[in-house]
């Protein structure tokens, strides 16, 4: 055994192998970081069972939080889809309007006020009310009845997948939603049904126009007015399209000056009103928000305990590193590297699962919305969560005595 030492050393002792005058300085930060990152990854992948346990925690948090937040965004989209699909730049609504929902009619004079306002390209009335459709086998189902003015049809229908929008010009004709056809008694183009006591015929079919409540069903404005028994001098909303280059604020002020009994809101403003209503006046915000927070808390606890447990399991190795010259900062780098790695790996797996899941279950009834901003945000939140979760482990490492290695 000593042969090698002896023979090699006899040559080396006199040159570069003898102890040198020590340098009392830490290695450059770049070298320390790279070393600690290597140690962190080796430790992580060495304890595969523990690594999978921690990863499951992160993956669970990513999937659950995205599923909840994505479903919430899907619900928001359902509730704002009418405003988004509709080509109106502005809406005239009654002053008490908090969201897009059936409301008491208002005077139609604001329609004419709008049409005569500078900067307004067009203005159309819109009826928006609840109605019911009689089923062939008896009973009825609710529908979200929309009265939309020809020939512009600014208030829909959109996404017509069967028949044509122009069918609304035929007498007693309506357009229904494809995804609700079965529920509405097996509707098809040409089917005859009774809506609000009127016999109507299905003229066309839309796809995906299913809000949070009953599906949209469209009729030409005059037919809708008769069916809803709305007086000719009343309407529910007025849709406004602006001329190119028109100043929305100036138009809004001009209309409200001449029609102070109504409220004028821009498209984004109305969208914000709807979202605000959902968050403040309905339990949706609390329900989904608390579920998302719960998912993050569960993930935090799992990661925190796993990281702490990993430190305790490897406490002697950490003590050794400290004894041979690693600092508390170096050991913290190991734990932080592990936590960031767990966050990135867990996010990658979790997001892959949830995006696939969302694609599989996507339908007009349930559409999980996963915008890129949310996926990036989730990853950043996971990194923050995992780093925060590792703080307990870092605190434990600070208390590791290098002298423990002699015991």
């Amino acid at each position, binding site marked *: 055994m000593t042969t090698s*030492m002896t023979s090699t050393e006899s040559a080396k002792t006199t040159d570069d192998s003898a102890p040198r005058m020590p340098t*009392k300085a830490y290695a450059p930060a770049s*070298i320390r970081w790279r070393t600690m990152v290597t140690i962190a990854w080796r430790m992580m992948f060495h304890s595969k069972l523990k690594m999978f346990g921690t990863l499951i925690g992160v993956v669970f948090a990513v999937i659950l939080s995205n599923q909840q937040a994505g479903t919430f965004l899907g619900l928001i989209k359902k509730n704002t889809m009418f405003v988004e699909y509709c080509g109106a730049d502005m809406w005239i609504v009654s002053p008490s309007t908090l969201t897009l929902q059936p409301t008491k009619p208002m005077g139609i004079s604001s329609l004419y006020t709008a049409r005569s306002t500078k900067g307004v390209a067009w203005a159309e009335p819109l009826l928006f009310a609840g109605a019911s459709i009689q089923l062939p086998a008896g009973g009825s189902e609710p529908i979200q009845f929309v009265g939309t003015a020809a020939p512009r049809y600014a208030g829909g229908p959109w996404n017509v997948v069967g028949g044509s929008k122009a069918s609304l010009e035929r007498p007693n004709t309506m357009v229904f939603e494809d995804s609700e056809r079965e529920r509405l008694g097996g509707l098809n183009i040409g089917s005859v049904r009774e809506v609000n006591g009127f016999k109507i015929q299905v003229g066309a079919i839309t796809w995906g126009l299913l809000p949070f409540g009953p599906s949209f069903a469209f009729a030409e404005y005059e037919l809708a007015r008769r069916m809803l028994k709305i007086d000719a001098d009343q309407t529910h909303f007025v849709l406004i399209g602006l001329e190119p280059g028109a100043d929305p604020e100036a138009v809004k002020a001009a209309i409200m000056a001449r029609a102070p009994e109504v409220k004028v809101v821009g498209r984004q403003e109305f969208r914000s009103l709807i979202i605000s209503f959902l968050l403040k006046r309905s339990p949706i915000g609390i329900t989904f928000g608390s579920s998302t927070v719960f998912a993050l808390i569960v993930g935090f606890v799992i990661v925190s305990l796993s990281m702490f447990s990993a430190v305790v399991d490897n406490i*002697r*190795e950490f*003590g*050794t*590193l400290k*004894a041979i010259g690693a600092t508390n900062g170096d050991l913290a780098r190991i734990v932080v590297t592990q936590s960031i790695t767990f966050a990135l790996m867990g996010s990658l797996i979790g997001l892959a699962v949830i995006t696939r899941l969302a694609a599989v279950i996507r339908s007009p009834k349930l559409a999980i919305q996963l915008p890129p901003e949310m996926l990036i945000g989730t990853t950043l939140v996971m990194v923050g969560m995992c780093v925060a979760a590792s703080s307990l482990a870092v605190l434990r490492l600070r208390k590791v005595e290098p002298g423990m*290695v002699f015991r």
Partner: protein
Amino acid sequence: MSFVHSASIPVVEAREVVKDYGEGPTTFRALKGVNFHADRGEFVILSGPSGSGKTTLISILGCVLKATSGTVRVLDDVISDVAESELPKLRLAYVGFIFQGHNLIMSMTAQENVAIMLALRGWNATDAAKEAARLLSLVEIGDKLKSLPGDLSGGQRQRVSIARCIAGNPPIVLADEPTASLDAQTGQLVTELLHNLAKKRGHTVVTVTHDNRIFHFADRIVHIEDGQITQEKDSHS
């Protein structure tokens, strides 16, 4: 620049060193005014019964613990005056450790375990890997570079530990019961290796051991009992 230090000036020296554990009425005095020194190229064995203060003394010499009172000097540094936060820097500069239980990072290969020490001492990754391979060859396990500690025998692990200890050429090598977990033959070989570190490379080697079968390797044997040095003899005299 090679380390050149006069043989007449100790590389490591402790004067009237006292170490207390705990506070108040439960205070335990582990060292009671110990005087100790070791010179360049010297192989010193610290012996004594369990709880006598051997490990406390090498912990203080190795800049792991601070003495309660007394003076501890390593080369030109009075380490007893240094703030606790500065101790890791001094350990890196001066000391290589060999532990009873090898204390290797189990998830890293033999080569990586040695390279860690070099990286902490500022070597870049490429040079550290080459030097680690050279040192492992030196302790005759050059064929185990990529082996994990779990795949090595106790003797092989201790050799990795020795290679790690001398990585970067620290002037002082402190070994805590390096043969305790080894069979007699391997223990002899490991001690011979430590002896060569002192005699052929000029390290100052201080070894704590109960194993009287290796006493004949030592230049000096220092016996500690109840926190005091009770006997000190030149093993060759």
